[in-house]
């Protein structure tokens, strides 16, 4: 057996080029698997740990104002383990060095010790001292974006008055792992953050002494959230309750959970594609080896080696390559996972990412690869075992060829003999040719998905900021005000246009299905902020009835013509049946839009506005910012440009990583397939090609014949790749679609052409390289011996 092992070693060395291609592909598959599974598990573990250690609540509710005494009744609700009341407010901020106004969610920290729920983790500095009215902790992303550190000063409009605050710490809580403005989806860390202050001083400024406007609840172990939500709604509705909700509607939780789910999809799909190509190549190489070594196999059997030993010998060859690939892949995977976790750590503000190089993950990836490889090479191994010694020692009879169907229908005449050689070689092993084409197709498809991620993200940004939210500034009032407030805004210096809007938090109900959102009211003929369908463009909002995102309509299972029960969560808390009058295919968020007047009427309000979209003269921005900062009724100023820049930065960051990786993989797949194909073509047809050289064919002519089959495979693989890519794109779009955003499943001709070019160039490079091998062809010795 020692000698057989030596034979194994030498054979591996002889086919090191092909071996390395296989090792690289297996390594990539395992690396992707290990990195995405590790990252997914790290995120999951981090989320679970943070939620547990920092007491992430299960149920949340916001309201107008309720006396603190109500807290005991909330705590007494069946299923409630801990309930904590808090004070929250959206406030305008003035940050030194930032020309535009920023805004923040201001949250209370109890004065009698640590919060019992949603505890702060402090990254830098300390928490606020009890009763210190001018101290604040700043959320990490906001602090990083603005360079804020403990000791810095900022000011905030609290209860209509400017108040100077000293930053004493930088930190976060489980509710703010991902910071985004209420009702918003796209974040802008530079202009929006979260601040924590002493509850006493907040309550004093907001006229909430002895009262609260937010409550969080942790459930008793095993208790369902629905009864608690219902109980809270009952208790809070007299106090302007806006409807309690569970974790699944908490924005930060939902975003992070969606991301973790997507990571799981990535962890399974991409490695399977790459591994498929790797084991296909492995099976080709091994089949070829068994075919060329039939004499050796016969001799070994004649010597007395058993079937088991011979089968194991060839299986071991495959295993060595796969185990080598899996080992490299596992190491690279841990390293990539570490990097990937760091990207997520930057993006999400977890106190610490609990990344672990778990041996079980690598082992799982390795076993997967080994199982796939053994399945792929089982045919070749079986053939090696099945050979009878006497038969094996006779040279293989010449391969049988017959005219292909292309020739039988008479098209063969159009081809020169060299063309027919290519055609018949394809026809003799159609499965192999088809699988090679599929491999090339997979490479094209991977590149297409990479390009799609980029294209779709930019389309989304373009759609959102270029067509939907075309305002320069969105001003949100502290509460719904009469349209006079909008007129006031229009009169400010630099304001060219102002369009009032109304938002009304509401529950949409259809049968058993409900959805909580804020209904947006727009004025007829609005130009700045519009409802835009991806395909149909601008959609006019009718004078009555609801226009819904298609995603929301599917959620509620309603169609135009159906009615939806609208329950408002503010003010008089009216309820009404409203007809659905239109659907829009949109990309960001889940919208329910009405005519503003109709919305006010349905809610039982007068002509109110929650804010206005402004078109601004760029020359007067600074002056306008000064004015906006001085308006106590303004709770938030959202700058479209800043948000867009922030989203673009985030996309560039994550897309660059993702698209480079996918493109690298597809190049590797293409190179692997073509390299192995070229090697195999040379090995199998060495004699044939040498004969042609002897007859007088030039090296170039022989090279063209040798790569003819590969050219056909690449040519057939490309359109196959477009189909596969289109399917992958649809799958990716479906897998990544959420209420928050949906990537448009669009494949542009440029995308397909670009992906094809990448793969064809990689294939061409290898094909050109293979020409060198023909130069080394030893004509004399090849022709001398019969294989």
């Amino acid at each position, binding site marked *: 057996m020692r000698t057989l092992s030596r034979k194994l070693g030498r054979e591996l060395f002889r086919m090191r080029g092909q071996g390395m291609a296989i090792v690289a592909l297996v390594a990539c598959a395992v690396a992707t698997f290990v990195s995405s599974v590790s990252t997914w598990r790290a995120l999951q573990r981090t989320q679970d740990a943070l939620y547990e250690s920092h007491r992430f609540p299960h149920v949340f509710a916001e309201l107008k104002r309720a006396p603190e005494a109500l807290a005991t009744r909330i705590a007494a609700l069946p299923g409630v383990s801990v309930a904590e009341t808090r004070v929250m407010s959206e406030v305008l901020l003035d940050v030194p060095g930032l020309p535009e106004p920023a805004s923040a969610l201001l949250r209370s920290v109890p004065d009698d010790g640590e919060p019992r729920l949603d505890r702060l983790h402090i990254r830098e500095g300390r928490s606020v001292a009890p009763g210190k009215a001018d101290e604040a902790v700043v959320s990490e992303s906001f602090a990083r974006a603005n360079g804020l550190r403990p000791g810095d000063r900022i000011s905030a409009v609290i209860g209509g008055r400017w108040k100077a605050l000293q930053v004493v710490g930088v930190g976060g809580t489980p509710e703010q792992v991902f910071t985004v403005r209420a009702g918003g989806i796209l974040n802008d860390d530079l202009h929006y953050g979260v601040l924590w202050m002493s509850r006493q001083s907040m309550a004093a400024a907001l006229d909430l002494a002895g009262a609260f406007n937010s409550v969080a609840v942790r459930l008793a172990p095993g208790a369902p959230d629905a009864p608690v939500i219902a109980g809270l709604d009952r208790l809070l509705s007299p106090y302007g309750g806006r409807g309690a909700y569970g974790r699944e509607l908490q924005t930060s939780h939902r975003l992070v959970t969606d991301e973790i789910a997507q990571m799981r999809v990535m962890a399974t799909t991409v490695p399977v594609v790459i591994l498929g190509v790797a084991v296909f190549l492995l099976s080709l190489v091994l089949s070829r080896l068994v075919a060329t070594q039939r004499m050796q196999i016969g001799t070994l059997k004649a010597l007395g080696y058993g079937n088991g030993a011979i089968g194991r010998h060839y299986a071991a060859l495959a295993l060595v390559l796969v185990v080598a690939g899996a080992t490299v892949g596992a190491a690279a995977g841990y390293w990539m996972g570490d990097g990937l976790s760091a990207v997520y750590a930057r993006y999400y503000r977890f106190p610490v990412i609990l990344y672990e190089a778990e041996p079980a993950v690598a082992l799982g990836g390795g076993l997967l690869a080994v199982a796939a490889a053994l399945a792929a090479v089982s045919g070749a191994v079986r053939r090696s075992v099945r050979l009878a010694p006497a038969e094996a020692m006779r040279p293989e009879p010449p391969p049988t060829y017959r005219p292909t169907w292309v020739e039988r229908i008479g098209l063969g005449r159009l081809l020169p*003999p060299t063309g*027919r050689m290519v055609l018949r070689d394809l026809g003799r092993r159609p499965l192999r040719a088809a699988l090679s084409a599929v491999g090339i197709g997979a490479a094209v498809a991977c590149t297409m998905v990479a390009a799609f991620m980029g294209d779709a993200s930019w389309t989304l940004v373009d759609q959102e900021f270029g067509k939907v939210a075309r305002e320069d500034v969105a001003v949100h009032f502290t509460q719904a005000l009469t349209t006079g407030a909008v007129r006031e805004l229009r009169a400010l210096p630099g304001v060219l246009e102002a369009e009032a809007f109304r938002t009304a938090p509401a529950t949409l109900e259809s049968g058993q299905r409900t959805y909580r959102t804020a209904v947006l009211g727009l004025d007829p003929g609005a130009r700045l902020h519009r409802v835009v369908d991806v395909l149909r463009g601008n959609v006019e909002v009718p004078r009555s009835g609801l226009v819904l995102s298609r995603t929301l309509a599917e959620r509620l299972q309603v169609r135009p013509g159906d009615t939806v029960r609208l329950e408002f969560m503010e003010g008089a808390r009216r309820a009404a049946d409203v007809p659905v009058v239109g659907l829009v295919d949109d990309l960001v968020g889940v919208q329910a839009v009405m005519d503003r007047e109709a919305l006010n009427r349905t809610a039982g309000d007068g002509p109110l506005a929650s804010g206005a979209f402004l078109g601004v003269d760029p020359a007067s921005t600074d002056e306008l910012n000064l004015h906006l900062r001085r308006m106590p009724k303004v709770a938030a100023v959202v700058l479209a440009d800043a948000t867009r820049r922030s989203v673009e930065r985030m996309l560039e960051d994550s897309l660059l990583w993702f698209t480079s990786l996918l493109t690298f993989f597809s190049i590797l797949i293409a190179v692997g397939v073509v390299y192995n194909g070229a090697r195999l073509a040379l090995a199998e047809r060495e004699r044939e090609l040498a004969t042609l050289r002897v*007859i*007088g*064919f030039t*090296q170039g002519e022989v090279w063209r014949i040798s790569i003819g089959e590969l050219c056909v495979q690449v040519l057939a693989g490309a359109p196959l790749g477009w189909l596969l890519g289109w399917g992958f794109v649809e799958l990716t779009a479906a897998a990544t679609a959420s209420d928050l955003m949906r990537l448009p499943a669009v494949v542009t001709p440029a995308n397909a052409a670009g992906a094809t070019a990448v793969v064809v160039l990689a294939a061409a490079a290898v094909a050109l390289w293979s020409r060198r091998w023909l130069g080394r062809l030893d004509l004399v010795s090849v022709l001398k011996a019969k294989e």
Partner: protein
Amino acid sequence: MPATMPAFEAVGITKVYRMGEVEVHALRGVSLKIWDGEFVVILGPSGSGKSTLLNVLGGLDAPSGGVVRYREHDLAHPDERALTAYRREHVGFVFQFYNLVPSLTARENVALAAEIAPRPLPAEDALARVGLSHRMDHFPSQLSGGEQQRVAIARAIAKRPDVLLCDEPTGALDAATGRSVLEVLDQVNRELGTTVAVITHNASIADLADRVVRMADGLIARETRNERRASPAEISW
């Protein structure tokens, strides 16, 4: 039928191979002339250097020393391009193991060579000459050994080469089949005037030749001229 100028002229050619650590002297100073239209048989046991000599004459291998030329072509100083052109235009090869392209039919194997020649014989004519008109559309796997070798000869003569170099053309065949192959070679030499050089270790083939060159140990041991060329039907082994 010697002409005034030899087609091939080799003077003192040597060939040294390195086989791992060992130097093998395959040719130790061979001088030889072959005239147009001659049928030459080069005889010798294996290892005598006859195959190396044939490879040098065919432009498949360059000698380590000495002078060798075919008409104005210098074969001693290898230039890949020039050697390819030389093989393409002047030489037809026949091998012991036929070396047909398995994915092409008999006709297509011949056409493959005809296509790259400046003034080829139609593939059908070449196959008719070797008596295979009725097997033109068969693949190699459907032909017997003798038939395969005759296709290989047809492929060689389709280029209308000036010289046909045959390396043990009957080595893998039984006597009757071998004779039919030799008949074809004889006929090509007589009817087309193609110079034919056959290397073999089978001494009975020597009777077919105008001239017999015997090699041993990398040297020409003896050269003899047959008074009368035997016909293939007369020889036996």
